[in-house]
């Protein structure tokens, strides 16, 4: 019996195509009718993939058709966007996907959870059998090993996550911390959301246009404060995110000195996203003040990207080992020792025993 992977991802197809072939609850049923003995559907925002085992060869067009969710043009027009990998290459692909090596952001860990959920769904619907069980368990094991033995997941890779990591090193627990956003912009909003996701609950927004401040504050469940008072706010807050369109520095050492005197030893983390910069670089010289501009944040994110890229070789070596090992097991099964009629209850038991 052969097993294969068929699908498309962010590299092979734009979102307009991916959303047309997003797959649906009936996709595995259709594929079972076409002759697949085991089927798993993995759908994320970046990929739609079918992992299946079948005795006969099933045409790509038929599989693509099973994934189509609309009545638009035929799948034939999009077949070049799909890839198909058989047996060992299929195993390698799943192992790489689960380990985050095939993700848009290399090393992201969310994909492992999504793969586990896809397998649990396949198992619950009776579409996963012994072969997919072995394949998936091996993929999860390989992914864990890649995460623990390499630094592929290390370091923040977006401006928002860099800010969160830095804030956590400066303040420890972020719960109860106070943040002021000066101005408004996409990056500052994203950064604020990232901080809020880690427990920052006191969010203040200040803008030259009060209505804009109110709007953003409402959106972020924070409070709007008058722009004239932003400097006074600096006595209370822990994190300042600045992204105004001012042409000169809004915060300079002479303005900050009296504020720091009132803050005692409380650190102040300033994220200056504005270009030109809102905060004079000399401010970073003060004890307890940590100033990061957009370039510093981007540089840290890009260093993390580079570090992850450097770890790819080590991660691929781990994947190679698991593929070779899996192939060896597959060889045994082809010679007839694999229990092909494995009881589904036993598989479920093994699944429960293994870490989902």
């Amino acid at each position, binding site marked *: 019996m052969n097993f294969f992977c068929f699908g498309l991802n962010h590299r092979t197809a734009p979102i307009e195509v991916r959303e047309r072939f997003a797959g649906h609850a009936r996709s595995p049923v259709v594929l079972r009718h076409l002759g697949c003995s085991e089927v798993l559907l993995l759908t994320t925002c970046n990929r739609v993939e079918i992992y299946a085992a079948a005795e006969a060869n099933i045409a790509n067009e038929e599989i693509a058709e099973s994934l189509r969710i609309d009545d638009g043009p035929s799948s034939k027009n999009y077949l070049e966007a799909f890839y198909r990998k058989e047996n060992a290459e299929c195993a390698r692909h799943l192992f790489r996907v689960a380990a985050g090596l095939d993700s848009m952001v290399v090393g992201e860990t969310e994909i492992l959870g999504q793969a586990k959920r896809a397998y649990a769904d396949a198992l619950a619907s009776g579409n996963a059998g012994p072969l997919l069980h072995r394949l998936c368990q091996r993929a999860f094991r390989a992914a864990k090993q890649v995460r623990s033995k390499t630094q592929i997941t290390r370091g923040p890779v977006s401006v928002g996550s860099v800010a969160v990591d830095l804030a956590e090193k*400066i303040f420890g627990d972020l719960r109860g911390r106070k943040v002021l956003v000066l101005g408004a912009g996409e990056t500052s909003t994203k950064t604020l959301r990232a901080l809020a996701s880690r427990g920052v609950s006191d969010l203040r927004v200040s803008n030259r246009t009060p209505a804009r401040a109110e709007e953003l504050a409402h959106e972020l469940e924070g409070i709007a404060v008058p722009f004239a008072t932003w400097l006074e706010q600096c006595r209370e807050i822990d994190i300042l995110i600045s992204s105004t369109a001012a042409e000169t520095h809004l915060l300079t050492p002479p303005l900050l000195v009296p504020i720091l005197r009132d803050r005692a030893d409380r650190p102040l983390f300033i994220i200056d996203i504005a270009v030109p910069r809102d905060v004079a670089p000399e401010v970073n010289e003060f*004890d*307890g003040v940590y100033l990061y501009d957009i370039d510093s944040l981007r540089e840290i994110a890009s260093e993390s990207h580079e570090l992850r890229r450097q770890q790819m070789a080590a991660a691929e070596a781990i994947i190679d080992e698991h593929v070779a090992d899996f192939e060896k097991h597959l060889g045994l099964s082809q010679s007839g020792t694999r229990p092909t009629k494995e009881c589904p209850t036993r598989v479920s038991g093994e699944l429960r025993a293994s870490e989902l």
Partner: protein
Amino acid sequence: MDRQLLIFATVCYLAAVIRTVISFRARIFRRSRFVFLAIALGFVLQTAFLSVRGHALGSCPITNLLEVLVFLAWSIALIYLLIGTAYRLSLMGAFTAPLVVLQLAAWLLPIDTPRAFPIAPNPWLEFHASISIIAYGAFALACVAGAMYLVQERQLKTHQLRSIFYHLPPLPNLFSAMTRLLWFGFILYSAGLISGFFVGEPLPWTKIALAIAIWILYGAILQGRYLGWMAPRRIATLCVVAFAVALSLLWSIEFVGHRV
């Protein structure tokens, strides 16, 4: 036999240091069970050394400079094993091990000389000496926490985030550990200082003056911390400087003690 125990203990700590250096070079720096176990094994061997030496001497084995250094290294390892686990500062081991190795490597020096004259057992003297050395152990760990704080703070200030950045604890955690270790050391040191006056033997004034100088130094750091006179970074710097000063004064105390 006892020297062999010491050599094995040094090897264990050295293994922890080598492992740390390898991790640094490979840029894969993470909390390592190996480092913790190596330090724990080194600690057991050190304890065995002190026990064998203590039985042979019939008193607390702090009769010469080597024994004092070994006892100090033992105190540091003990406090690390307690504090590092309790405050989740296991990375502290990476910083502690080199300090311990430096002290244990003292067996290479010709300082393991038996006392020229036997001393009558004196429980106050033993209490005074041992509690003071354990206090030094706490100060040493405060120095380690201070060094970690300075490393982390420098990375945050200069925006140069190395691999270790993601493994070092946040600044407030390090500062809190540093403060507690300072208090712990200061209380023990005060007890050691007070007990020194009950030893019942005439003490050289230089020894008393140096001991009080160290007490004042650490008292001033704690005072500065609670009155808000000094920023955390300054306190971390002082923890490192004060321990260097205290360690050299400890040697002076020993040196002066032997001469007088």
